[in-house]
């Protein structure tokens, strides 16, 4: 039961989506639609699993007084606060006349989104700009021919995609040579390289999907070969 059922489910779900690509007729086309509906609902529950799991893990950390458990308290409090604000905004909207969305401009949930969630997530990722800067100073070296080619191409694209290198040569020529060059790199050598990588990856994904559908690959259901 523990192994056979999930294996069977995997194969059926996989076959429906693969076969209905070729056979639109009932029952394949129809089951594809039903399975599509299911996927969206299951994924929503998966997110909720994540939310509940975060609560569980943080709770355990506090109970065990693990190192830095105080931050787990903050996680739980802010999580619950967000849920409360979100649900109150949502149900207020549902019973309002006319109805409005939980995320409409002016709701408390939108306020939370704009003044807490947005700045935190945006700032978190914007730190990468600093790290790129320091890595370019301390780590990116033309240590071999490959790295050299990479840096040169990166240089031309970085300087050509914004009017930076073109401005430097502006006193000598009116042509936007570097912009054109960057554009050419993107559209020809880059597109060619990406395409080669893309075809390789496509075959890789195709082969691992095939193994999963045929039950040769079973790591997702907790078993090797």
């Amino acid at each position, binding site marked *: 039961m523990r192994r056979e059922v999930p294996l069977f489910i995997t194969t059926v779900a996989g076959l429906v989506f693969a076969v209905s*690509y*070729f*056979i*639109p*007729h*009932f029952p394949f*086309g*129809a089951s594809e639609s039903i399975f599509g509906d299911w996927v969206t609902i299951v994924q929503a529950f998966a997110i909720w699993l994540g939310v509940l799991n975060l609560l569980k893990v943080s709770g355990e950390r506090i109970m065990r007084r693990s190192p830095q458990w105080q931050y787990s308290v903050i996680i739980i409090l802010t999580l619950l606060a967000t849920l409360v604000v979100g649900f109150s905004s949502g149900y207020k909207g549902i019973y309002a006349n006319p109805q409005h969305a939980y995320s409409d401009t002016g709701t408390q949930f939108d306020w939370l989104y704009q003044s807490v969630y947005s700045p935190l997530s945006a700032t*978190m*990722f914007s*730190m*990468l700009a600093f*790290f*790129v800067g*320091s*890595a370019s100073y*301390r*780590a*990116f*070296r033309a*240590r071999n021919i*490959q*790295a050299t080619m*990479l*840096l040169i191409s*990166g240089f031309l694209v970085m300087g050509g995609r914004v009017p*930076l290198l073109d*401005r*430097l040569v*502006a006193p000598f020529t009116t042509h936007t040579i570097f912009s054109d060059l960057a554009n050419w790199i993107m559209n020809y050598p880059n597109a060619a390289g990406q395409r080669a*990588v893309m*075809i*390789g*990856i496509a*075959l*890789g994904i*195709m*082969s*691992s999907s*095939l*193994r999963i559908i*045929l039950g*040769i*690959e079973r*790591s*997702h259901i907790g078993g090797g*070969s």
Partner: protein
Amino acid sequence: MILQKSNYQLADFNKLTFPILASFLLFSSSIFPQAPSNQTIQTAPVNSVTDTAAIIPPQPPASVIVKDHPFDRGGAISISWEKSPDEVNDKVTGYLIMRSENQNGPFEVVGDAVRGSNSFTDNQTKDELHYFYKVDAFIEYLGANGEKARITSVSLPTGPVNSSPQWFNADRKWVLLFLGFVAASIIYFIERAKQGKSLYVRKIAGIDAVDEAVGRATEMGKKIFFVPGIQDMNDVQTIAGIAILGRVAQLAAEYDTWLEVPVSRSMVMVTARESMKEAYSKAGRPDSFREAQVHYLTEDQFGYAAAVSGMIVRERPATVFYMGAFFAESLILSETGNSTGAIQIAGTGQQAQLPFFVAACDYTLIGEELFAASAYLSREPRQLGSLKGQDMGKALFLVAIIVGVILATAHIFDLSTIFKVE
């Protein structure tokens, strides 16, 4: 305005500086003329008319064709037409598509199409019913009271037609053929590998360097770090990373060099310990393995990066491996390793991180090379067989491209029509 004034001063200042500094000074507005903005805004072309009698209905579209929408699960009919001759003199705003079960009506509107279009798909049909369709051109105008009004053409119904499902999508026969070929080769090679037939895998530069890197750590009497990425065991890259860890661990055990594996997932910790224990046994030193060599830090991305960088700075390992799924932390880690002078060998399938690894590490396994290396080292039939099967796919595509280009250049046959799927 303040802005313009300050830029004026700047332009004079410009002349006094070194040419090298131009990069920072060339940005004054005297060099950058502001883009002119003179485009006028178009509004929707609604003819404003006060005398409705002056409007003549447009001519209806010619030769309306209705047929079952091909290769679908039923429930759809395609309608196509030739554009109304009045489109050229701007007398058509759009088309209305109308449907009835009787030739004589009544017809109900099932869709509309904008000017310039010549087809529509009615996706709301029942397969068991027969339908008649009319396509009317219409012109929209503003009436005397400012309300939008329409005048439609008068056209004849076409039909009957009914929708039906199909058993095979013939547009996709070539996909079936090529997919079948690649799938069959994968299965064939997996079976061969299972039977113990040896399958050749070419040398991979980064893997050849592993011995050298481990040897160097031994000579220097320093540690080796192995970072298996920040994803869990459900990511194939992590699995490949752990396979390579096995090889590194075996060498480290043979040379008796301390190998340390900081991880960010508990599942990865368990698997890495298993794999290392096995490797140490293979090297004939099962007692040398300590569980503390693999330790869990944190699941948090930047927290993990900060902790590993701290370890690298403090302990100054001779060699650092990065094998698995990496995201933004790749930068922080490889930069730190580089600053301590460690030999760095990386491998990942995350395309966005590859440039940083190539620029900052000594060897990088690029995308598929990571999986190939893992298959090569583990000799696992599933991995080896798939690798071979995929190579067959690549060979097929390579031949197709070369032959196709030759045929196309000689104007003999356009092979791309076979590969193009719409």
